[in-house]
């Protein structure tokens, strides 16, 4: 099996004769140097380069090329050689690129005589360097080993040779460059030799040229890297940990950087901070890279940067991670501000406590100092908060467009290409959450599917609000609309015919709001009206719950009546408690309690005040439901710190037809499966 080496890693070689294949994006010089036990070249003769391609046991190419094959016979290497370095350099005088930035990472493959690859190494993270010691071969306890080094030099060949103790490094580097330039002139210009291109490659052609010259299949790069053709890493993930970026020396002999070149620094500042390279199984779907995560700069956040088996699960976990991070960073800020406030109060009181000093200049100074201390601490806390929030904002900017329909807002372009899914999603977005401190940042509020608890869209007046009854009708209308938007979302994210909607609208008060569901045909049976409609619908659903529960308990699911709808059910109750008698109320409570375990969800649109007549018997019902509001309201607490978050209901952008379009497609898909 091939060992894919990372920087600093070594691997034993099975024999003394190996071949080293080099693949680069552009013609490069390949060379080899010998080092003594001190890591130095004894003299200028201990190097194999295009002008002087032979050393005992090593032979290199006379020309710069995009592909090299170096034959190495380690048994023929002189006894006093303790290390053979394999290096690459960009030719200085041929008009090619002057540094590795923007080029695909050079690849090394060490193979045996049979062509079997022993070890591979991709020299990632190069930017300003124009020469690099890529591999070293060294004897250890009787056998030879290969180590991935990847030490780059921004000053080029001369610096590299000087680093190995050569006195006339400059002169030798010039000789090599001259020989290469002469060789280039002699030979026909290779077809892959690109026209002189700008150093910062930012065009499509770079990728294409790279593919042509290296022959490396570019198909393995996901589409996301189209935004960043200069991406040297495989897999389209942003590169971190380059020689320059991590502060490792570019020129001059430095220690080997043993960090994984494609992994983030060991201690991200946040508890769960987006790392540039999420730990993903190679077989799994690759995360979608942020467009700004180019090489040479700090890699930005990526969508799907969380654990999980599927992209969907990763995004779900990432959203919850962002939720927790925001909750905690705001907790830190609030705690600091609280502390600053109490400290200032205590100090001011201390000043006031001494009546003699109350009006003296000393007191004024003490007061001013207390205020200054307060200001400084709050300022510090705010800086930290802003840093964290802007980091989360950057993450949200990447995550939001990557969300699948079940987690997307209605203004997300994903709806334009909507197709009914094949599987039920794991969660659904039922709105957005924010805090006063979070600026424009909105965290999606996700609930698991199937619903573990029902939803209650409160059409009553927001608590503590003095708004008159004129607003009441508007609130009712908004609540009914919110219910419809949510119901449409439910239907759209379930596979065809795996969610059946039931609507109870006893007095027809929500008829306008229900129009999109009725007109499109997403709602198959018309809304149940009147007391009899209420009774019938509830009867049917309670019976279904009973039957399924019985069947599950007695493990006789195959004994269920064949006409039973096995799809999940979602019951939407408008105008509660109109049209409800005691029996219906009890059935509703039963459904709220027992329904979730057998796939019957409940969504109530109700004003708690109107059901006051039932007294406290309904309190458990309200408590068991997740309360949502048709207007922004701060009533939801997070599970970690308990901030009061402002909930905003989902809305369809005004004038947008997206909801109707999506529902049409749902119904069309139903038709096609039935046909």
């Amino acid at each position: 099996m091939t060992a894919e080496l990372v920087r600093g890693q070594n691997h034993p070689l099975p024999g003394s004769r190996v071949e080293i294949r080099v693949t680069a994006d552009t013609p490069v010089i390949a060379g080899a140097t010998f080092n003594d036990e001190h890591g130095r070249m004894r003299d200028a003769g201990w190097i194999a380069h295009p002008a002087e391609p032979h050393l005992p046991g090593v032979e290199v190419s006379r020309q710069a090329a995009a592909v090299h094959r170096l034959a190495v016979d380690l048994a023929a290497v002189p006894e006093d050689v303790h290390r053979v370095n394999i290096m690459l350099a960009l030719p200085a005088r041929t008009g090619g690129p002057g540094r590795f930035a923007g080029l695909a990472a050079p690849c090394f493959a060490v193979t045996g005589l049979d062509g079997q690859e022993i070890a591979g190494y991709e020299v990632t993270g190069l930017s300003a360097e124009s020469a690099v010691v890529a591999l070293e071969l060294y004897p250890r306890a009787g056998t030879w080993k290969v180590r991935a080094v990847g030490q780059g030099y921004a000053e080029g060949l001369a610096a590299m040779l000087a680093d190995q103790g050569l006195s006339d490094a400059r002169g030798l580097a010039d000789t090599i460059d001259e020989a290469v330039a002469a060789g280039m002139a002699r030979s026909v210009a290779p077809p892959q030799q690109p026209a002189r291109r700008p150093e910062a490659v930012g065009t499509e052609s770079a990728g294409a040229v790279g593919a042509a010259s290296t022959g490396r299949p570019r198909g393995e790069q996901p589409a996301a890297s189209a935004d960043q053709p200069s991406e040297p890493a495989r897999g389209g993930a942003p590169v971190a940990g380059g020689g320059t970026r991590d502060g490792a020396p570019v020129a001059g002999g430095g220690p080997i950087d043993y960090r994984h070149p494609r992994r983030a620094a060991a201690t991200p500042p946040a508890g769960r901070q987006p790392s540039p390279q999420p730990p993903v199984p190679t077989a799994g779907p690759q995360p979608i890279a942020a467009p700004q995560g180019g090489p040479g700069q700090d890699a930005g956040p990526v969508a799907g940067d969380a654990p999980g088996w599927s992209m969907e699960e990763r995004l779900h976990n990432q959203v919850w991670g962002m939720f927790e991070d925001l909750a905690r960073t705001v907790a830190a800020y609030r705690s600091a501000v609280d502390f600053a406030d109490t400290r200032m109060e205590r100090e001011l009181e201390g000043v006031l406590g001494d009546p003699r000093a109350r009006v003296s200049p000393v007191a004024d100074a003490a007061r001013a100092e207390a205020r200054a201390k307060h200001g400084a601490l709050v300022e510090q806390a705010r800086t930290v908060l802003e840093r964290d929030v802007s980091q989360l904002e950057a993450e949200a900017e990447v995550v939001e467009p990557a969300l699948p329909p079940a987690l997307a807002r209605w203004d997300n372009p994903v709806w334009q290409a909507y197709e009914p899914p094949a599987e039920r999603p794991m969660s659904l977005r039922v709105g957005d959450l924010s805090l006063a401190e979070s600026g424009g940042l909105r965290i999606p509020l996700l609930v698991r599917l199937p619903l573990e608890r029902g939803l209650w869209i409160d059409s009553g007046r927001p608590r503590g609000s003095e708004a008159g009854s004129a607003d009441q009708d508007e609130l009712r209308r908004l609540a009914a609309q919110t219910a419809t938007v949510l119901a449409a979302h439910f239907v759209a994210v379930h596979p065809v015919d795996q969610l059946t909607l039931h609507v109870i609208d006893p007095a027809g008060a929500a008829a306008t709001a229900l129009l999109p569901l009725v007109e499109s045909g997403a709602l198959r049976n018309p809304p149940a009206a009147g007391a009899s409609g209420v009774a019938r619908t509830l009867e049917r659903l309670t019976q279904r719950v009973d039957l399924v529960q019985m069947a599950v308990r007695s493990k006789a699911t195959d004994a269920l009546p064949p006409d039973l709808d096995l799809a999940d059910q979602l019951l939407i109750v408008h105008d509660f408690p109109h049209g409800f008698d005691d029996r219906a109320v009890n059935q509703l409570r039963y459904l709220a309690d027992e329904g979730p375990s057998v796939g019957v969800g409940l969504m109530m649109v109700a004003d708690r005040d109107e059901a006051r007549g039932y007294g406290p018997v309904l309190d458990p019902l309200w408590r068991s439901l997740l309360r949502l509001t048709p207007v922004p309201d701060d009533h939801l607490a997070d599970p970690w710190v308990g901030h009061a978050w402002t909930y905003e209901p989902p809305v369809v952008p005004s004038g947008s037809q997206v909801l109707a379009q999506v529902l049409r497609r749902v119904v069309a898909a139903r038709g096609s499966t039935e046909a």
Partner: protein
Amino acid sequence: MTVNLSKGQAISLQKSDGGTLTAVRMGLGWQAAQRRGLFGKRTKEIDLDASAVLFADKQPVDVVFFRHLVSDDGSVKHTGDNLVGGAGQGGDDEAIMVDLQRVPVHIDQIVFTVNSFTGQTFAEVENAFCRLIDETTGQEMARYTLTGGGQYTAQIMAKVHRQGDGWQMTALGDPANGRTFQDLMPAILPKL
């Protein structure tokens, strides 16, 4: 290498390359009580608890212990309550992780304590120790052997406090008595 700190000794958490320490972990390990095996002979389990108290200007602001595993700001995390102990082979049975970079700006001291929740004194617990580790390198910065520590049920182990831009650790190692960190508060306050 283990540094066995003597009482009151302070270590700056500056690293040798000038960078400051970014994450520390307090580990607590002890050997579970001997199994008595047969029905009717109940094993007297030993439950030691690690806690961290966060102070701002000598006022306790937050505490991380087995009932509150993560500080509100998320910077201090407890790995969870271990009720019985472990193999006594030197592994941590409870640990508290502190991300010093994320500690809120007003928190200036964090005190680590150990309590015997089930009431055994350290004289009765086998192979008990607590230690403070530089989480970035895995290097142990301080270690206390609790076993044989006398007729005490608690120890105020160490404090990590702000020093300039960075953090400093001071070994306290003060024995005390108490079931949870609350009982230790009177003993902690003079140490701040």
